[in-house]
């Protein structure tokens, strides 16, 4: 797949700004470090030349930011969407979370994004600068010269198991359109399913014990756009600032996964941002896999206006207890 260059993005944005189609541009800029790329709103061309970033670390899914930004913006916002981001975009539209008229969506091809932890594993800590070209060149404060690596060797897990290079929503597409891929995204879920309950318990105990309740997963999640989160709402009965007991984190993650079940597009942002590297996407994928198997294939965000499995039913759905029997014994 041909990469679209940063310059092409800026040129596109500048021309749309100039002809009045949009009044602002939602894209990415550098944060504290070269690999720490964050969403940013631009209104002028110079600003974009100075700050706009488009490289192998632009994992952030911009769809979610439209909810807040469109409420404030006067005119249209241009947003750059990678193929996986377009699913979130549609899902948010299904839920009426922003006004489609206020957005000009430009689809951009994506070859996958880099996982900074994998980069560090090669380069070592203390990254001073990163250059993204044919190869990713990383120099650290501890070593002379730069470590070089292929993007394909340091892909984020979610990009390794990319479900779709196809954009399901856009006003305009840059570069060539990709296809829905036969990803192996459920392999890891299946591996866990094949374990004994004790092994699974041990696995999750290990993983979830790392949780520090920083809420990064929730804050980045494009399905978590609630005006007030239940975990911040005293009337919900599950509000918590500090955990009461050890179960609290567990409950947080189950409830969060349940809340986004049927709405989660499997964009993988939760795992990408987790500072503790908990594979949170596995919880979401477990729900997706179960729903696919029990109620028929469903991809949230594929089109606008879909009815998700949990707000639907058929008269002969399987019983709650039967969910374990489908497809042989997985215990």
């Amino acid at each position: 797949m041909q990469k679209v260059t940063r310059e092409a993005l800026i040129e596109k944005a500048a021309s749309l700004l100039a002809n009045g189609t949009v009044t602002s541009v939602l894209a990415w800029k550098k944060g504290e470090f070269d690999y720490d790329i964050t969403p940013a709103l631009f209104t002028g061309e110079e600003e974009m030349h100075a700050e706009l970033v488009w490289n192998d670390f632009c994992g952030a899914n911009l769809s979610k930011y439209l909810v807040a930004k469109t409420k404030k913006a006067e005119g249209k916002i241009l947003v750059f969407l990678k193929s996986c981001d377009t699913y979130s975009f549609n899902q948010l539209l299904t839920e009426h979370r922003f006004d489609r008229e206020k957005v000009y969506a430009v689809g951009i091809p994506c070859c996958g994004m880099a996982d900074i932890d994998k980069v560090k594993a090669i380069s070592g800590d203390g990254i001073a600068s990163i250059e993204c070209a044919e190869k990713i060149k990383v120099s650290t404060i501890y070593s002379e010269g730069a470590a070089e690596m292929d993007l394909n060797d340091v892909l984020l897990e979610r990009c390794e198991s990319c479900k779709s290079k196809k954009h399901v929503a856009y006003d305009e597409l840059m570069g060539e359109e990709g296809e829905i891929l036969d990803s192996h995204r459920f392999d890891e879920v299946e591996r866990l399913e094949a374990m004994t309950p004790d092994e699974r318990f041990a696995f999750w105990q290990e993983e979830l014990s790392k949780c520090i309740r920083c809420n990064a997963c929730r804050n980045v999640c494009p399905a978590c756009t609630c005006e007030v989160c239940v975990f911040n709402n005293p009337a919900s009965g599950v509000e918590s600032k500090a955990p009461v007991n050890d179960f609290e984190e567990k409950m947080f993650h189950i409830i969060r996964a349940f809340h986004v079940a049927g709405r989660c597009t499997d964009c993988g942002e939760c795992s990408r941002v987790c500072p503790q590297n908990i594979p949170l996407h596995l919880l979401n994928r477990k729900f997706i896999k179960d729903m696919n198997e029990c109620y028929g294939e469903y991809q949230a965000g594929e089109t606008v206006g879909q009815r998700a499995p949990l707000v639907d039913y058929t008269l002969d759905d399987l019983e709650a207890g039967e969910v374990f029997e489908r497809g042989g014994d997985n215990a």
Partner: protein
Amino acid sequence: MQRIGVFVCWCGSNIAGTVDVKQVAKALENEPGVVYSTDYQYMCSQAGQDMIVNAVKEHRLTGIVVCSCSPRMHEQTFRKTAAKAGLNPYMVEIANIREQCSWVHKDMIVGTEKAIILGKAAVAKVNLNAPLTPGESPVTKRALVIGGGIAGIQTALDIADAGFEVDIVEKKPTIGGKMAQLDKTFPTLDCAACILTPKMVDVAQHEKIRVFSFSEVSEVSGFVGNFEVTIKKKARYVKEDICTGCGACVDKCPVKKVPNEFNLGMDNRKAIYIPFAQAVPKVATIDPNACNMLKAGKCGVCSKVCTAGAIDYTQKDELVTEKYGAIVVATGFEPISMEKFDEYAYSQSKDVITSLEFERLTNAAGPTQGKLLRPSDLKHPEKIVFVQCVGSRCASCAEKGKEYCSKICCMYTAKHAMLTRDKYPDTDVTVFYIDVRTPGKNFDEFYRRATEDYGVKYIKGMVGKIVPEGDKLHVQGSDLIANEQVHIDADLVVLAAAIEPDKSARPLATMLTASMDTNDFFTEAHPKLRPVESPTAGVFLSGACQGPKDIPETVSQAGAAAAKVIGLLAKDKLLGNPCVASSDENMCNGCSSCANVCPYGAITYEDKEFRMPDRTIQVRRIAKVNPAVCQGCGCCTVTCPSGAMDLRGFTNSQIMAEVDAICK
């Protein structure tokens, strides 16, 4: 902070025999919010209730917990008691320590321990109870009946006789429906017209009934007691109020070859027509697809001969909006198309007909003036074969047939067979059947008469193929009892086509937010206990739109629906169930999940302006629950991702408090 009184009932020895009521009262005394706790032999007795009233006054109670029998037994009683004491009735909670404690546990220690926990849970809940007031809404004292067949007619007459106004909307030019097309009715063999047309006249003459014929419902809004309905009166190009129904226009109309739908296309009508002699309203209608004047601007004969001046070629569809308190659906049925069953050669031979066509062939007002002549050559058929269950009980392919039993075919086939043998004893009549289903008063006797007295041959088996050859229909079928394949050269074959809901029912259900089953029959609010109500409040069901029905059943259901409507319209105000869902607009995301699962269509959305902390105004889509429509199941509350939706009387925090109290 609440001031809660706890009242532990002995229920004689029913509770006190296994639960130490004194200890329960004592244990609950120390629960948060409890300021008074006592026990008594029979809380539900007058003395017991007085005790509660006095305690409320004396201890300035704001909430009450009664530890007694099931709330399904006495919740209403104690709510009234609370009201008597000046408390909001919804400040009462019951701890069920009889059915779910003393009666199922034998050990006093175990029973007492559990009763205390159940009491604690109730106290925890009351602490979070809020006074609830049922919403009130006015009732428009007028009913709408959709469909003017026997079901709609009977419902309308019954409602109107009770003194309420009723409008009937009928899509055809006349009311009367399927029954008007029938010849005789089983099991008494009354003439259908003789018993139906007087009712049609009653409708026409009733001062409380208006008939919108040749009209359709195009929009419905509102809720129980307060519906607003837009009715589309289709242009009939004849002024209904002026036309006298004299028929002069029909006589003179030069366009003669329009298939007559009333006789199912077996003869022709004019471009201007009155469907049948007893039509109500008896008014002519012009068929714009056939009329030369409307198609090409040439002719105008009807206008010239009409002395009343009723013809109006410029008439347009007209929209009428009216308010109603209740809506009755009576959209009826249609026989299914025989297109997919051509093994019976329906499309190949005019002499293969459906049972409804047979009705017209034997009806004195039908295309053959009641003489049984077969359509192809108008000869008297000497051998007739009836085939039952054509398309009914067919599970193999949804687009072909219907999985259900159409219920009426066994009886009308017996009727047809019997009447044929009665009028034409020389006719050989054979019926192929799978099962003969005759549950109903005098039904089986009727069927037996067909075979025993009239000599109708019943063959258990099914026809597999009909081959028209020459002027015969070669019928090949199975006789399962004789274990042989039978071949009959018949002159006429009558197919008992399955019946299905009228095609207009599905879009209507969407407008009404009334639910339907997979076959497009309307769903009843409860299959046993609320069979004539739709789950959507204020929408009632009459006749075959709810499921296959014969005339007696239809008329009884029509009357029952009318009784329900009268009960509703007799009220000046509707008191709702206050335990309904409500959405906190500050938390609602407007995502529509709740509306997806609401079985009653109680949730709508609106854009609302919010003033933000930075003084800007933001517009956000939010959910609104109509408390008059919501029935309080709470399904939306779980679907709501933000927790904005909650259920009054069973709030998230109340239930969590109960869980906490039990698990403490």
